[in-house]
């Protein structure tokens, strides 16, 4: 059934056109029906088509109104919340989300621990956004190598960078490059099946002791994965290479080491409660460390999270057994220790064997009101065969992007990118959201409010510019991006391609009682989407 709408004046005013169709129809009455039967039949046909055409045109009228082309770089929570809010705030917006991986969702897929499936439910909401008619996902497109930032800014009216933080803060101490010293980020990506890390192979068999530097939620995650009985992990979506390695792991003792005290521990109650509840786990928290000063009290008074964490640590300390029974796994919370250097094993194999710590004491800091750790000159060694540094992530700059290297973020005001840290000049049409904007802190929900602020800035800027601004002139947008990528022979992974990967993973997983079996090989992932 072909509807010829070229003769019809398609307007989006549905009732008008419907009436127009009816008017055509009613006009028949005034003609001589007998003599004009054939032409009246044709006219009748056209009027019915007109009414029907109005309905179709109304339903598919969006194409002409997509005058605002937006590109979001990064498909994690920051990217998806930004896309969702842009689509909602601007009916004329068309949003393309690009990601360097073939799989979307950022850290929700590669960061959230396998034994935290409820935290990943937000993927349902993000999938709904990706299914929006005005939204597209393009995976395997890397900012910097597939396409440059300046090219993106030429193709789109608005570019929002939400690509997070894929690097780590460094301690900058001797021995940091010994084998066996890794960042927690690498370890997490490894057990979560990130395609860049399926060959990572941490050595879990040379030792029974691992030291985790840091006491935030990521530190607790890696400690928990090391200490949990592998049978409990077998029914999660943990990568199979990691599960196999953990089954053979000889690690039985994990130290969670912080520079400051229990009143400053960066983890939150839910994660702490969870790790303390691991079956048959011996938890050691020294009573002496729990002595708090009035400065500690002051800090905790206005901070509900810190108070509840401290209470949990106190309870765990007083209720534990005095010594571990043989064969029991151990978790030690070590406070007031700052790593000074990593020491190599005696056989000089280049592998870490020990961490040398300096004892610290808390000192009030003039500016922030928070106490900082100051070295006391006393040192202590802790033997281990694996070190995981969980001291914070860091963002990576790209060409053409102003960057504040000391803070590791893009200089911005309310999400609008500044040309440089000191100059009060804005980069036109360039915005940031998420960790790249405010640093690697917060939870998934933090990005909800972050995205609202950035989209608010974009909306304000659009309103200010008006019809003669650069936002008014048309840009190639999605078509331009796809053409450019095709010219460069870059295979784009669409959202429905991801859904193929997704159903394949879930099918595989169901064969072994897991919610999904993550596909971790780049080549295979891309091959799957061409079938």
């Amino acid at each position: 059934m072909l509807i010829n709408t070229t003769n019809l004046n398609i307007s989006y005013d549905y009732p008008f056109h419907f009436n127009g169709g009816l008017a055509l129809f009613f006009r028949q009455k005034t003609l001589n029906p007998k003599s004009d039967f054939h032409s009246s039949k044709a006219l009748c046909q056209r009027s019915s088509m007109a009414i029907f055409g109005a309905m179709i045109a109304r339903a598919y009228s969006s194409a002409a109104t997509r005058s605002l082309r937006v590109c979001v770089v990064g498909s994690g929570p920051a990217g998806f919340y930004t896309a969702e809010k842009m689509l909602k705030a601007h009916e004329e917006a068309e949003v393309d989300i690009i990601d360097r991986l073939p799989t979307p969702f950022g850290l929700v897929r590669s960061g959230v621990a396998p034994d935290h499936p409820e935290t990943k439910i937000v993927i349902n909401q993000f999938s709904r956004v990706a299914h929006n008619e005005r939204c597209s996902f393009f995976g395997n497109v890397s900012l910097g190598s597939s396409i440059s930032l300046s090219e993106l800014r030429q193709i789109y009216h608005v570019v929002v960078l939400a690509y997070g933080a894929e690097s780590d803060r460094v301690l900058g101490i001797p021995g940091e490059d010994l084998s066996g010293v890794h960042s927690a980020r690498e370890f997490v990506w490894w057990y979560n099946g990130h395609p860049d890390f399926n060959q990572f192979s941490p050595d879990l068999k040379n030792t029974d002791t691992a030291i985790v530097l840091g006491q935030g939620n990521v530190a607790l995650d890696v400690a928990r994965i090391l200490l949990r009985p592998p049978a409990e992990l077998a029914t999660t979506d943990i990568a199979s290479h990691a599960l196999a390695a953990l089954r053979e792991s000889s690690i039985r003792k994990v130290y969670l080491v912080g520079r400051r005290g229990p009143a400053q521990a960066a983890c939150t109650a839910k994660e702490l409660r969870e790790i303390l509840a691991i079956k048959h786990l011996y938890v050691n928290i020294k009573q002496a460390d729990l002595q708090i000063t009035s400065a500690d009290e002051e800090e905790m008074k206005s901070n509900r999270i810190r108070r509840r964490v401290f209470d949990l640590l106190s309870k765990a300390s007083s209720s534990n057994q005095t010594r571990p029974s043989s064969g029991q796994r151990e978790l030690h919370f070590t406070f007031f220790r700052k790593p000074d250097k990593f020491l190599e094993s005696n056989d000089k194999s280049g592998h870490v064997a020990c961490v040398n710590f300096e004892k610290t004491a808390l000192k009030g800091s003039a500016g922030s009101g928070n106490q900082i750790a100051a070295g006391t000159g006393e040192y202590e060694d802790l033997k281990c065969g694996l070190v995981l540094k969980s001291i914070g992530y860091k963002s990576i700059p790209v060409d053409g992007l102003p960057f504040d290297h000391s803070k590791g973020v893009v200089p911005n005001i309310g999400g609008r990118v500044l040309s440089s840290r000191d100059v009060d000049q804005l980069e036109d049409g360039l915005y940031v959201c998420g960790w790249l904007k405010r640093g690697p802190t917060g939870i998934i929900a933090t990005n909800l409010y972050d995205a609202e602020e950035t989209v608010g800035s974009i909306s304000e800027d659009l309103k200010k510019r008006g019809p003669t601004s650069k936002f008014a002139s048309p840009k190639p947008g999605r078509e331009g991006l796809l053409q450019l990528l095709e010219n460069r022979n870059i295979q784009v992974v669409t959202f429905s391609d991801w859904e193929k990967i997704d159903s394949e993973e879930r099918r595989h997983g169901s064969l072994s009682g897991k919610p999904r079996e993550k596909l971790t090989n780049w080549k295979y992932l891309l091959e799957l989407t061409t079938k």
Partner: protein
Amino acid sequence: MLASKSLKLGTQAIRGLSRGLLFSYLFSVLRMLIIVFIVSRFSKPVAQATITRRKQYVQGGELFSTTATSSADVENEEKKKISVTFVDKDGEETQIKVPIGMSMLEAAHENDIELEGACEGSLACSTCHVIVMDVEQYNKLEDPTDEENDMLDLAFGLTETSRLGCQVIAKPELDGLRLALPAATRNFAVDGFKPKPH
């Protein structure tokens, strides 16, 4: 199919006209109008489709939305439903009827109220944070569990009477409940937001 059907009706109407049967003409037109209107009701224009965050249990489409019932029905429904008012961050109030046993998050989604629910009620986030506006009503609620408190720790704009919407279940004593949606966006500071003192 529809075009040919309307075409058929149209030609029938014309034939009716030429035989001078006004009634059959009017009847055909009426039939066509009914068909067209019913079809337009079901094909919601895509350009206007809002991104909904509803769960599976919601029956989509305008035909099934719950709205305030007439006063005559209120007495009958009070036994099974309570009245809840949501106040958004701009002060706009929306009153809805919530069946006993339903959570406030579910009720909000069924009535198109903008309450996020990232983890869909599994106590793994804090996005359905609501503020109970009346202390007495807050006290009528059961104490939050440790798990809920753990999530409330992380909520933006936390107050003394804050709860998670997915954990507040409608019961008869809560009739007239007033819930405020937090004005977190106003307070969000880019350099590191900290929850208010509790």
